[in-house]
């Protein structure tokens, strides 16, 4: 449960070795570049002034960005077409992108192959178009039985002859106004109405008028293969044989394309990896500053990989200056990206933490505590050995099939539910089975111990709140927020106030004074005063001026509301956890209802049905509610105390595998 330490590196290299270096960085998959251009402009680029560095430093005054690679998109498009034609799969091989090579070689190869296939591919286009034309015109037994020579029909001199389709709405228009339309509309089909072909014949001098009417009807014209037209029987035969011919020719041409470029296959495969790499690099290049001779890079690398990076870059020396920067000297304005690093048992919960926010580099990764608290809360609310096992299995299934993270979370929650199930002596809602096998007095059946359960829930909540407050104090002090850490309501003063209030309430209930009343009152008054005056007080101690960040009037009005809210939230935060107990009770209560229903039905079948129905309902509905309630407790009652989550994720550059 930690946040991985990051190091900022600045790198200057010769322009000529930039591409190989970038490829290395991408292949490593653990580097995230920053915008070196703005780093240099804001004098945030670490390059010590020494004789060796003189040339790159002088050059810095002429930095510019790398222009976009205009031909990349086109080249990738060409390669995609080539790959489709040659039935090539897009696989990335890292060894293809290592070492020294120029993008231009790849581009030229792709262009060459494309040009060499062009003529054949055009031929494919023409053949496919003809095939489509026939297929579109053809319709099963449309024209059958007609003794018309359509070939002759198409050659009529004094008539306009068109074929096409109509939507059903427009077909109605024709039908309802047919007496006024100056043309023959002949329905050719028995096929699905929308596909029916119409033959439209009109005197030639009405062509203009008819075309306008056809447009108003959204007539979709179909152009028949005139050369093949004749009597229906002859056409059918002509279509079939032409289609066969076309298909054979298509297959032959396609085969020819493949064979023609077969000897280039290795080169093309390599090109694919290289173009994917180039695409990844395009994204990176925007963050690099260059001059005629040098390239300047700035980026993050996990501290653990620092040496490996140094080593792999050493081959480019001399002519390469790599500096690692001390985070301390960068100051708070540089936002360090974060990568969470957690042990296996808690790692899946990172997903839920991220849903709230990514921890900033300067706060503690809350995943561990999140995992523990969420698991306990869920288990306590949904304690059942059998149902927990179902959830555990569901988690395993989801982990394999869908999402490893969410599956992992679910299976862990299921295990916890099983644990609490043993404590509650509950298997699929049946109490007394576990205790029947392993008798003992340590079982805590919720309904028999209502007060204990509710009280334990609040105690658990208070414990968790203490941990949260501890985190908060630690985070604030780590971020040098002394005022918040010491005098804030989630700081030391707030924690003391919380403790005093708990003791006071405890005293009321037990009738026993846990601390002398004067001490208790004293602590409460003192901490309230500290919280109320925290800003002026803190500034006074630290010797900072002005004492108030805003006008004093505003500050005190705000502060008094803040104080009021502090009391309110301490009260409500604590009580909020009562729901943990309530859900534990509710869980048993629901089952009593189902057991009662089963008894009323009285048959074995009824009991079994009720057992299944009850368990399903409880697992799905109550399980869902408890999942949400647990999350709510952790997010709202605990995270709000100490967790900001305004960090940015460390997203290293990797090789794009998507084709587009």
């Amino acid at each position, binding site marked *: 449960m930690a946040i991985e330490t990051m190091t900022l590196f600045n790198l200057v290299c010769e322009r000529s070795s930039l591409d190989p270096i970038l490829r290395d960085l991408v292949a490593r998959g653990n580097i995230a570049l920053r915008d070196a251009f703005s780093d240099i402009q804001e004098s945030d680029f670490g390059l010590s002034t020494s004789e060796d560095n003189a040339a790159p430093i002088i050059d810095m005054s002429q930095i510019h960005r790398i222009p976009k690679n205009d031909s990349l998109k086109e080249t990738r498009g060409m390669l995609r077409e080539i790959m489709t034609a040659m039935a090539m799969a897009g696989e990335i091989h890292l060894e293809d992108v290592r070492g020294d090579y120029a993008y231009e070689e790849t581009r030229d190869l792709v262009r060459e192959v494309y040009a060499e296939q062009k003529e054949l591919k055009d031929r494919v286009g023409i053949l496919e178009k003809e095939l489509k034309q026939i297929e579109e015109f053809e319709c099963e037994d449309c024209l059958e039985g007609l003794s018309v020579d359509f070939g002759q029909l198409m050659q009529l001199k004094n008539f306009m002859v068109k074929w096409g389709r109509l939507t059903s*709405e*427009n077909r109605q*228009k024709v039908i*309802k*106004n047919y007496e*006024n*339309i100056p043309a023959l509309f002949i329905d050719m089909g028995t096929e699905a109405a929308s596909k029916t072909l119409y033959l439209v014949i009109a005197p030639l001098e009405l062509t203009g*008028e008819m*075309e*306008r*009417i056809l*447009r*108003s*009807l*959204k007539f979709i014209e179909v152009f028949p293969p005139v050369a093949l037209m004749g009597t229906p029987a002859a056409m059918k035969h002509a279509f079939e044989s032409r289609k066969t011919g076309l298909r054979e020719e298509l297959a032959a041409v396609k085969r020819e394309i493949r064979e023609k470029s077969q000897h280039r296959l290795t080169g093309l495969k390599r090109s694919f990896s290289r173009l994917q790499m180039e695409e990844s690099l395009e994204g990176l290049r925007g963050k690099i500053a260059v001059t005629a001779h040098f390239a300047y890079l700035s980026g993050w690398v996990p501290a653990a990989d620092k040496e490996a990076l140094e080593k792999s870059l050493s081959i480019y020396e001399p002519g390469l200056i790599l500096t690692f920067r001390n985070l301390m000297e960068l100051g708070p304005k540089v936002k360090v990206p974060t990568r969470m690093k957690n042990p296996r048992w808690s790692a899946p919960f990172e997903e839920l933490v991220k849903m709230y926010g990514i921890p900033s580099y300067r706060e503690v990764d809350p995943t561990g505590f999140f995992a523990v608290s969420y698991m306990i809360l869920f288990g306590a609310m949904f304690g059942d050995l059998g149902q927990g096992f179902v959830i555990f299995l569901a988690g395993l299934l989801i982990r394999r099939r869908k999402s490893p993270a969410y599956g992992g979370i679910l299976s862990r929650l299921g295990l916890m539910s099983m644990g609490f199930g043993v404590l509650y002596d509950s298997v699929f809602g049946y109490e007394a089975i576990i205790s029947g096998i392993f008798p003992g007095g340590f079982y805590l059946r919720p309904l028999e111990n209502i007060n204990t359960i509710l009280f334990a829930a609040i105690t658990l909540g208070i414990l968790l709140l203490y941990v949260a407050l501890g985190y908060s104090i630690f985070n604030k002090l780590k971020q040098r927020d002394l005022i918040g850490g010491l005098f804030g309501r989630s700081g030391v003063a707030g924690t003391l106030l919380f403790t005093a209030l708990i003791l006071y309430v405890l005293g009321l209930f037990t009738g026993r004074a846990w601390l002398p009343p004067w001490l208790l009152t004293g602590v409460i008054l003192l901490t309230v005063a500290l919280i109320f005056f925290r800003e002026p007080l803190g500034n006074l101690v630290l010797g900072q001026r002005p004492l108030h960040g805003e006008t004093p009037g505003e500050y005190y009005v705000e502060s008094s509301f803040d104080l009021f809210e502090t009391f309110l939230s301490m009260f409500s935060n604590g009580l909020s956890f009562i729901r943990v107990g309530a859900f534990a009770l509710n869980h048993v209560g629901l089952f009593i209802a189902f057991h009662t229903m089963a008894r009323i039905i009285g048959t074995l079948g009824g009991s079994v049905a009720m057992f299944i129905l009850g368990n399903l309902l409880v697992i799905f509905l109550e399980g869902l509610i408890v999942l949400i309630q647990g999350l709510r407790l952790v997010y709202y009652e605990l995270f709000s105390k100490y967790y900001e989550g305004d960090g940015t994720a460390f997203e290293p550059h990797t090789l794009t595998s998507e084709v587009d």
Partner: protein
Amino acid sequence: MSATAIHFAPGAKARALSGRLLTEEDYRGLMASKDLRDFVDYLRTHTEYGVLFEEPGKIIHRNQVELTLRKHLYDSYEKFFHYYKDAYRGLFKVLFMRYQVENIKLFIRSILRGESFQATEDHLIRSRVYMAMDYDKMAEAVTLAELVEALEGTPYHDLIQVYLEEDSKEQLFFMEMSLDGFYFKHLGQAIEKLQGRDRRLMRELLGKNVDFMNLQWVYRAKKYYGLSPELILNYTLKGGWRYNYPRLKALCYLEDLEEVAREILRSDYGRLLDEGELFIQRNLERGIYRLMGDLVKRGRGTLLVPVATLHFLEYEIHDINSILESIKYGITDPRGYLTREIEERG
């Protein structure tokens, strides 16, 4: 949610919106403005549109005023959109579609007139709610064919492509009718997915709206374009309230224009020809405006309230622009051009 509960929040929103509409007094105030600055000052100090023109003396061009108001209208639509889901959201989506249709019409017109694109750009409301469109590519189009190409991949492409070959003065008209027909068809489909009173009232609104449009179309097509009855009939919109296909057909095949006028005057939509056919477009809008007013009274607690309120806002913005234009051209009494009917004082 129950039928009424769906409209609680948007209904309240609509009431608030209609409370902010201009009064007759405001209309008079705006009409009395001497120039653009005066006009904007009035909007700023007397009306709820003031927030849109906060910086005094900032707005200098008429187009800017118009665009600001249209954006405001569009934002209002979008607000309602977010209150609804399922079929209702679907309906609002279609209402957004009209903006795209109107935008395309603007492009077509500016191309046919050979205008610079800038003039069009100022009128565009770019919404992605219904569907993303590549306005930049459309803006580059110099010919209609290029515009059609820019629309590739949208349902509008096919609608106007067929008219590329139509080289008559009606080309624009056909394209517009085709686009309108498409919009109304989708609107009708969206309305059929609603239920209960919402559907009944929306059907009536749409049906009567379609009647108005069809009658107007038939009259104008006959009078100004002399189109054949077949063509006129084919371009009429489907789903009229009183005028179904046979009645429209009878109307289209009337020989004499006088007879058509008589038939229209006899119908519920006689207002269309008030003050002669020069005002037919205005009369159409006034007719729909009144229709909305009637339906809102009958449709409390239904979808009609937000829909009509938004239309009132739209007509109002239209009127504001008309007043602005009349100031530009020195027309002292623009009431005849407004949708809202403002009585002569005294």
